[in-house]
């Protein structure tokens, strides 16, 4: 099963390689990974998506926690959470398809961020499945290039 794990770590050189080294060294799998500074510039937040049975996920969270530079590990997929991914897609936009591309992007609430005589570059955010849906629809029209971020995620705030 897929799990989204959020890790707070010291913002220091080499910390990311401690995390990725742990995954490769112990044969755990990383499906996506995204990392950036938090409000406190000495701390980074890393979101990673991994998969495995409960025993594996338990080992992953324990092993992550064991790294000295790791401050906090949360399996946020254990409760309600919001996750987002972003994609930049350069899609063929010739006379015959320009309008079609715009319509599709509009439906998925994306926007055009760069225009050339033969292409649009569009930006979209959403869950991994939404991004995949856009890609599937634009593919027959002609995707020239694509760049996706990893997933970032946050637990939902308590409602009470």
């Amino acid at each position: 099963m897929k799990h989204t794990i959020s890790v707070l770590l010291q913002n220091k050189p080499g910390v990311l390689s401690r995390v990725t080294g742990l995954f490769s060294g112990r044969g755990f799998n990383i499906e996506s990974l995204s990392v950036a500074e938090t409000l406190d510039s000495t701390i980074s937040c890393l979101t990673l998506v991994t998969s495995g049975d409960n025993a594996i996920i338990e080992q992953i969270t324990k092993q992550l926690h064991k790294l000295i530079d790791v401050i906090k590990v949360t399996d946020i997929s254990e409760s309600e959470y919001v996750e987002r991914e972003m994609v930049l897609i350069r899609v063929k936009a010739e006379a015959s398809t320009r309008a079609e591309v715009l319509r599709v992007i509009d439906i998925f609430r994306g926007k055009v961020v760069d225009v050339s005589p033969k292409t649009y570059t569009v930006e979209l955010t959403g869950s991994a499945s939404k991004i995949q849906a856009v890609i599937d629809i634009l593919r027959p029209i002609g995707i020239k290039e694509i760049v996706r971020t990893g997933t970032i995620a946050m637990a939902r705030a308590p409602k009470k």
Partner: protein
Amino acid sequence: MEKLKGSIAIIKCLKEEGVKTIFGFPGGAVIDLYDDLYDSDITHVLVRHEQGAVHAADGFARVTGEVGVALLTSGPGATNGVTAIATAYMDSIPLVILTGQVPTPLIGNDAFQEVDIVGITRPCTKHNYLVSKAEDLVPTIREAFHIARTGRPGPVLIDLPKDIVASMVDFDEKKPIRMQNYQPTYEPHMGQIEKACKEILKAKRPVLYVGGGVILSDSNEELTELANKLKIPVTMTLMGLGGFPGRNDLSMGMLGMHGSYTANMAVAKSDLLIAVGARFDDRVTGRVDAFAPHAKIIHIDIDPTSISKNVAVDIPIVADCKHALIAMNNWFTTCGHNLEEVAATHAPWLETIADWTTKHPMAYLNEGEIIKPQYVVEKLDELTNGDAIITTEVGQNQMWAAQFYKFSKPRRLVTSGGLGTMGYGLPAAIGAKMAFPDAMVIDVAGDGSIQMNIQELATAKQYKCPVKICLLNNNYLGMVRQWQELFYDKRYAATVMEVTPDFVALAEAYGAVGLRATKTSEVESVIKEALSIDNVVLMDFRIAREEGVFPMVPAGKATTEMLLV
């Protein structure tokens, strides 16, 4: 705040941590540090190979419980230390390894003797640092010692660029270290302790399965109290030997691949396995699904990742073994049950265990004047009262030492368990002897392993470390040969040492004493002579060449499927 030269500050930090002896090998990148060590009262032991330096620091740490310190230069100096760092990591030994690094402006330029040792050692250290700013130097060293010795101990490496060591750095007063991100759990959860104790009261066939955690946490007395009070039989892993007195009636010796018949049967038939500071290593469990199949499992370990990693656990207790065992002993004292009655209910279980031992004791076949390695270790045990510090190399020699030397106290067996590093025993013996000059320190060795760090004979001589080497010489890489004999149709591929040195002459070349025994009747007098000589002594025992280590559980089999003598 004081301003000091980096190298002076490092030495001051070492002294602050109580370091009196370090092991190392100089080079260009650490020459400043060596220059100031020259004036300090810290004893520096110059080894002959950097692997030896880290193994010696490791041996020092294992026998004292203190943090061992090694000092290596950059590049090849540091990489030569890697095997020994990984050795310490696998066995959770507290070390601080200082490595020189090229000056900061040259880092990343493929400078002379530059290597990314922090990158290389990331997976085999508990933590490591590259000190990139002068103001970080002192806090880093202090934090490194804190991390090395607390929680589950381990080696910590600090990479020291030459320009930082030579620059002026801040040196402020040492304050207690608090790390937001590193707070090991020492105290057990009392609810879990109570659950565990209640299970122990109910158990009919309990077994204590004891690992290196008991040694590292110095909780052998608490463990012995628990076992004696409730009459629970004890088996130890290789790393746990000495955690419970080997001559106590409740001791079943070692378990696992080369464990005793009794220990493996007891685990297989037990209804409650109490794991204390052990990690369910594959050499212990054999086929995991057949390991302790009828038992509930209690697991005490300070490292949460050890729990339910290989075997699912019923009652996990994350704590320092000593704290957990004290809590359990207290619980039993105040629980209101008559403990003698509880202990008495284990009598049938102890009888079954005694029967197993009678039927299949640790044994070997006597072959008259052909020297049996087990006999040599037995004699060693007898003539030193089970009280010497025994280091080992790796392979058959190590297993015979573990099986036939009855360790009476903790920190007496110094052996590479997890990594299984050949060449460990001699430098580790030097480290142990530097720590306890009055102790009898004996390296039980094989002719394959000893040659991996034989150069350290010179170190032993230079520092007047009269360690003894008990060489079980069979002209084979014996353990691999044994596997080839049993599982590979006796095809002895690359395990025959067709050329070996004359070890007696070799010892003499280093200024040590060489003795040789070729017959069983000579063994005792050779050991007695070696023990009485105030010099490094190498005893060359020409043993039965194709003797095997038994019992043996073939890899991947259940631990009850033992090959016996």
